[in-house]
């Protein structure tokens, strides 16, 4: 290949990549810039929207944290997230082990069935769910979300962990059992330590899922002080005649960036789960 075509190829490559990166990151960039903009700067159409025409300010963050329910949304999201992660681990780890090791031939079929449950979307179930939540008197309570979110996280986590457990050689457990461990103990002492990265992937997946989830949170929760971030920010901070745009965009970007940083590290694992283990990434 001549020097010239190599140069051309790289230019096209990086040009394309630059466009994609810009498309992906532009909304975050705008949010980040606007977080520190003064009203006088933001609300003048002739001002360049990509730079600070006036000195940046922290006032919008003050407003967000001191005069809105944003800290409450964050707290609520953390409570729901932690509880749902715990429930998911307690239910999905044993289920996955059972399907991977103990259940035999029908374990595979049952695993696929459980994975299919993950494909049933909240938008199909939210109406009867709303009725059921009302029936057990959990309307407008964070507990309704704690109860319902595992229906999404358990199927996917079980599927993901099942793949993990299967990849651990049976001999290891059998050796432990020959040494006198029971099946249960060999699972706890031998299999679990080897599956830690799978468990961490499940924790990350489940936690981000509770942060992402929108429709159940929108349907079950009605008072502002019980909202979680994903609904609280767009519904409570937008409503009314006055848009506090900078604070609103700050609220979004302050959650988006840290969540993304954590998520990105585990994306490959989670995607391997999506492709049903067909791709060993």
């Amino acid at each position, binding site marked *: 290949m001549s020097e010239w075509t190599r140069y051309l190829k790289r230019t096209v490559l990086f040009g394309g990549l630059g466009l994609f990166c810009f498309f992906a990151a532009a*909304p975050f960039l705008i949010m980040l810039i606007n977080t520190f903009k003064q009203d006088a700067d933001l609300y003048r159409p002739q001002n360049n929207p990509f730079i600070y025409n006036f000195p940046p300010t922290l006032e919008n963050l003050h407003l967000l944290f001191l005069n809105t329910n944003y800290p409450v949304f964050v707290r609520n999201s953390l409570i729901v997230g932690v509880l749902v992660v715990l429930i998911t681990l307690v239910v999905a780890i044993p289920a996955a082990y*059972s399907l991977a090791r103990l259940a035999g031939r029908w374990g595979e079929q049952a695993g696929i069935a459980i994975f299919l449950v993950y494909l*049933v979307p909240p938008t199909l179930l939210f109406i009867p769910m709303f009725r059921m939540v009302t029936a057990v008197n959990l309307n407008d309570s964070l507990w309704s979300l704690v109860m319902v979110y595992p229906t999404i996280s358990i199927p996917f986590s079980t599927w993901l962990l099942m793949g993990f457990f299967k990849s651990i050689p049976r001999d290891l457990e059998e050796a432990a059992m020959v040494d006198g461990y029971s099946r249960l103990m060999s699972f706890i002492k031998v299999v679990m330590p080897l599956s830690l990265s799978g468990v961490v992937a499940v924790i990350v997946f489940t936690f981000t899922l509770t942060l992402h989830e929108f429709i159940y949170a929108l349907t079950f929760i009605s008072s502002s002080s019980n909202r979680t971030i994903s609904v609280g920010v*767009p519904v409570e901070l937008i409503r009314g005649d006055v848009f506090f745009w900078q604070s609103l965009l700050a609220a979004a970007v302050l959650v988006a960036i840290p969540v993304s940083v954590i998520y990105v590290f585990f994306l490959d694992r989670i995607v391997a789960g999506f492709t049903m283990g*067909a791709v060993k990434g």
Partner: protein
Amino acid sequence: METAADIRTREHSRLRFAFDSERFLSTVFLLPAVVYIVLLVGIPFFLAIAFSFTNATVGDTTLHFIGIENFVRIFRTPQFRRALFNSFFFTITAQIVIIILANILAVILETDFRGKWLARFLIILPWATPISLGTIGWLWIFDSKFSPIDWVLVRFGLLGPGTILGPSKHLTFLGKEGLAMAAVIVVQIWRTLPLATVILLAGLSSIPQDLLDQAEVDGAGFLRTHFQVRIPLIMPIMSVALLFGVIFTFTDMVVPFVLTRGGPVYYTQVLPLWAWFKGIEGGSLGEGAAIALFLFPVLLAAAIFILRSARRAEVS
């Protein structure tokens, strides 16, 4: 004195005990998950179907069977027919664009270069972010008065008095039928493209290098290799990416909810959002359930195809 038969029985019972306890353990381990899924997915699923044939409302706890009345009623409203059309239109358009862009992006990301981790991070951001929050950024980008896109267009002389895009200095993206639909589709693409890209990348990296080397030795150029070697090989994975995209787009209501609330008028209304407006905000659970039920055939078809392509991928 212990006979051989006694020993055999003892061995046998010990074996049976081990077998039993394993079975016991597997049942105990699996039971919570099964109970959870049956109670909170199985029952609501059947209720979703049952509700669509009743006059269930938010306030009233009694149910009356009213046959297909809900379906007749929802079909009469133009909002529903538009939502049905939009759901398909948005999903198909977005997926076509996504699969093309994801192919290009995956090929770019497959090459080695410095700072690749940063590019990967930026590209994955939209998928990792809670979509309701990401869409707020777009809400500002499409703002009727302060849109940065408007500003750039005005700056380059493409928008404003005496320019090709018209005398107004604002495009008001979310206020016009075509532009609002385009806006919803763009945000859906923005959000789902990373998933498709990462799935395709995993597929590409699983192609054995000697196959590609062989193609090069045989004199196949880049495009030829791509279309005749790589694409056929990653076809099963590509269809998995596509079907997940279909499911996530078709059943999603967050983007139109935050961006347009189905407006202007009902031009960007989609099935799940219309189900929410009717069922929860309007309080007519029966009608809402009937609307949401229209998601099911598409889901079922997508799930079947996912299973088939995943199986094909395992074989190859």
